[in-house]
């Protein structure tokens, strides 16, 4: 349940929609319980949550939003990051959440499934429906991008109230 909400929250971007998605996903899970082939039930449920959210997002025509970023990525690769700044900013949960929210959805979902729900690469590949190699590269690029966003985010003491 917590994993279902967390994933929905990260994919929808707000609490209200995430709640609806969790409701909807549990109903779907019940409906399709007959299709459950055994294995990890948590991964199975999250697959349903993910599909539910994406179906809903598509309906809201925000699909373009999900499928960008591939090209934008290249220029980020070699930027050096100041480790001290990075450490300091990583400690601020709001900054971290803002940074994760800025990731393209395809990177965000693998990062959430790996770091917050502790799924293996194989399990993530099954949930997301891609090859393990793709999971690895999305995860690595997502992390590099997070490090970059965190290192570039404005100094919070002088910026917005945290």
């Amino acid at each position, binding site marked *: 349940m*917590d994993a279902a909400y967390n994933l929905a929250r990260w994919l929808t971007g707000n609490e209200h929609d995430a709640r609806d998605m969790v409701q909807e996903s549990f109903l779907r899970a019940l409906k399709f319980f007959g299709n459950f082939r055994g294995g990890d039930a948590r991964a199975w449920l999250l697959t349903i949550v993910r599909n539910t959210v994406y179906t809903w997002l598509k309906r809201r025509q925000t699909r373009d939003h999900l499928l960008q970023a591939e090209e934008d990525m290249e220029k980020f690769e070699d930027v050096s990051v100041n480790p001290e700044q990075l450490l300091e900013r990583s*400690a601020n949960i709001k900054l971290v959440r803002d940074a994760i929210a800025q990731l393209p959805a395809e990177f965000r979902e693998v990062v959430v499934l790996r770091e917050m729900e502790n799924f293996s690469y194989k399990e993530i590949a099954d949930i997301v429906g891609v090859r393990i190699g793709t999971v690895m590269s999305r995860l690595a690029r997502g992390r590099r991008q997070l490090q970059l966003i965190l290192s570039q985010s404005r100094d919070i003491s002088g910026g917005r109230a945290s």
Partner: protein
Amino acid sequence: MNCEDLHRLLDAHADDELDPLRSAEAELHLQSCNACSAAYENLLALKRSISAAHFPTPDGLRESVLTGVRRTHSVATFTPHRDFRPWLLSGLAIAASVLLGFFLGQNLSPRSSNQALLAEITDSHIRSLFGTHLTDVVSFDQHTVRPWFEGKLDFAPPVEDLSGHEFPLVGGRVEYIGGRPVAALVYQRRKHFINLFIWPTGGTAKPVAAIKPQRGYNVLHWRMAGMNYSAVSEVNEDDLRKFAAAFSGAANPSH
């Protein structure tokens, strides 16, 4: 392994996804290369801070999911449908309740802080069995154990005598778990012991639910009247559930 090789494998290494040989090679390189080991430390720090950004499930969501499911369930499942045979319906109903019980009962398991708490509780149970520290107050009498907690805890745990249900009270102790003092009541079931951990909560009541056994010990968790309860024991789940029912019945006679 050179820096470039390591760079490609750094994420997989941090995620514990490398085979043992390559993992050892990566480790070797990290020990000898300051730049790479700094990058690795950064990555680990990033992993930790991402995992802390987990969103907690909002209050009331669990309940509203249950309500929604019950509503749909009673309409959909019990409306005759030409494709479904009766046996299939009852099968679905059972499947539905198993599934729900499974996910709703998982409150304690997925999140890492809860995992840590669960591990602490299990540790405490194991320590109490192997060490000499099963109880601080030894008594079969609830009227001795209950006042003993006064002044040692910032709350008053219910202490019940369940000898009538074949779960005699053995005693109690105070544990420090999850950063706070927790009451541990010790009950006996034949030759086995049950540790019942009690601490206050602001959350709503939750029915008794089994959590994935921890290192071979069965764990039940429930919430009632402002208290969290975790029962840990090597007794089988049925007996542990009987215990939970007997305790809840005695502590909260109105239910």
